[in-house]
């Protein structure tokens, strides 16, 4: 282990729950509103994990009111207070970007559940999805 890696390990959280690509997770996010702090829960499928050690990030995708939303969280951020694995997914890829174009099913270990209710997702909804994703990403970083 080199010196930089040792430093990076010191910047990590003590323990991070084990979760994999394709898992459905509930991310407990600390939100500061003025003086008050509260916990907001964001639930969705983990479609990507990037980076290593203290700089690792993961992307969670959900379909909200027919619009796809993706948020990128740092694994070791204090803003992410808790990560619960709701369901484990069965996937054959490390990055599930193909879900972005899909409307219907997405396979899981046991339950073959629908990703969202957006069966009648129109073209305009998808355009909104691509516009919304970067905004969410910025919000997650700050």
């Amino acid at each position, binding site marked *: 282990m080199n*010196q*930089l890696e040792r*430093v*990076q390990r010191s*910047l990590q959280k003590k323990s991070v729950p084990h979760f994999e690509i394709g898992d459905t997770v509930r991310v407990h996010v600390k939100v500061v509103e003025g003086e008050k702090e509260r916990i907001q829960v964001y639930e969705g499928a983990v479609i990507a994990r990037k980076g290593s*050690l*203290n*700089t690792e990030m993961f992307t969670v995708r959900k379909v909200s009111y027919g619009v796809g939303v993706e948020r990128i969280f*740092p694994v070791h*951020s*204090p*803003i992410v207070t808790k990560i619960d694995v709701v369901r484990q997914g069965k996937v054959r890829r490390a990055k599930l970007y193909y879900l972005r174009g899909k409307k219907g099913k997405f396979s899981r270990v046991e339950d073959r559940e629908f990703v969202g209710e957006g069966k009648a997702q129109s073209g305009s909804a998808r355009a909104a999805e691509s516009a919304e994703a970067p905004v969410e990403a910025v919000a997650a*970083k*700050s």
Partner: protein
Amino acid sequence: MTNGLLGKKLGMTQMLDEARLTPVTVIEAGPCRVVMVKTKERDGYEAVQLSFGDVKDRKLSKAQLGHLKKHEAPASRVLKEFKKDGDVAVGQTVKADIFKKGDWVDVIGVSKGKGFQGVVRRHHYSGGPESHGSMFHRAPGSIGASSFPSRVWKGKTLPGHMGAERVTTQRLKVIEARPDENLLFVRGAVPGAANGLLVVRKSKKG
């Protein structure tokens, strides 16, 4: 003590500064030993000579070993002078605790060598069109007038060796200091490759 110290660049990572993810460079700063204190009476100016880095005796010349032996200092890789700031005694160690969170520092290093580069890379010339029958791509073009001055002006930007020169990055913020681990975390990038020698000093611009 001194206005700065010597260190080694370990590399870059991210850390949280007031709940914002910040790019930082990790510097192994010190410990440096005070080898010599130069005084106005004897040397004509005031300075503190610091040593940094362990090295085998056989790697140094006799002159270097003699100088270190005279001041009872162990063999060290680098010797460098710094400005005097308060009381200093020979044999004292200067550590990363001279900086604390929120301080501004200047970091001096030797930039990465780029080799022989053309004017587009080296001086940001815009170059010519790549296609449409253009026969002018990345050349410098005209380098001056004809009969007057009948020579090329001094300082004309031309191709040549780029990088591997002393570069100062001014006013970087110290995000964290860990004196017991000899570590400094400064915001942003510093010159040179990892494992390069750095000078970290108090910022001139405050």
